[in-house]
């Protein structure tokens, strides 16, 4: 704590920090359910909660424009696309079942086999090792740095627009070409072949 002598307290209980931590916990929980649930559609819906939580974090970091872009593109279109993909590939649907049902264990095993691959425990070990390493390094590196959120809004639509169209015009236009290429590519990929079976 001596490092923090000239700074605000390490856990200075400002409202923004408390809200940030609470929303962060909710986001993390939603993300965990997304990657562990056996029901695929539920995973997509929990992903909405996780991405919405990240949008709220952007708002708390005063990046307003990014937050609304996140809501519009991720929650609005990406999750809808994912739900369409789940439906079109006939993702297995787990029947609603209670714990008392005699076939509960069987249904649960089938759902687990459908959703998770065999190397789940290796994946868990890798993820835990990565989390431990990253959190250790990050906490150690940024122990005594504070974000000053009081001065001005860092990411209002005006500020972001000025930065985007004054300094980042060329990447922006290149990105539009990339989006066009992705559009054409998706159409070509999903077009039915003329002479073939479909």
């Amino acid at each position, binding site marked *: 704590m001596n490092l923090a002598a000239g700074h605000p307290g390490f856990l*200075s209980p400002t409202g*923004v920090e408390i809200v*940030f931590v609470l929303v962060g916990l909710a986001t*993390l929980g939603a*993300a*965990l359910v*997304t*990657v562990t649930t056996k029901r*695929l559609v539920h*995973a*997509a819906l929990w*992903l909405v909660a*996780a*991405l919405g939580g*990240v949008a709220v*974090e952007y708002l708390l*970091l*005063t*990046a307003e424009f*990014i937050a609304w872009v996140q809501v519009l*593109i*991720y929650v609005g279109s*990406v999750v809808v*696309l*994912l739900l*369409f*993909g789940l439906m079109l*590939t*006939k*993702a297995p649907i787990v029947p609603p079942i209670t714990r008392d049902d005699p076939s509960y264990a069987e249904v649960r095993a089938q759902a687990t086999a459908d*959703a*998770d*691959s065999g*190397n789940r425990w290796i994946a868990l070990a*890798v*993820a*835990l090792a990565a989390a431990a390493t*990253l*959190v250790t390094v*990050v*906490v150690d590196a*940024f122990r005594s*740095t*504070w*974000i000053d*959120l009081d001065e001005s809004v*860092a*990411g209002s639509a005006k500020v972001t627009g000025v*930065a985007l169209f004054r300094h*980042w015009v060329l*990447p922006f236009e290149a990105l539009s070409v*990339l989006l066009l290429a*992705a*559009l054409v590519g*998706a159409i070509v*990929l*999903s077009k039915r072949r003329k002479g*073939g*079976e*479909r």
Partner: protein
Amino acid sequence: MHLAYPAVLAALLFCVGLYGVLARRNVILVLMSVELMLNAVNLNLVAFDVWLRDALHAGQALTLFVIAIAAAEIGIGLAIVLLVYRNRGSSDIDRLRDLRESEGPQGGSGGGSSDEASVTPATDNGPGPGPDPAGRQHA
């Protein structure tokens, strides 16, 4: 606000996405986990942009670009997944192993066909003898 909060949250979100990518079997669930990882990176970008008070706002501009590229990626990815599903009748990553190296002395050009778990490939020009005919009916 302490910078460690967004940084730690981003690191943990990234590791959750990493677990999902490695542990999930359905391709679309893997794509969802990739989205989680991209969001973790975006959170870092925004936090460091706000921390550094960058005059060019490089972090936020890059975040917007990453969001747009993620949208393009999910569109192309789903198109590829649907194509694979139409041709193979399955979207399980564990069962798409035609390109693996053949193992053992009996391995020849047959490759994956010796494995009963792998899905028999169907070419684009003719109906293939897929082991899962029910999955192909809708196409």
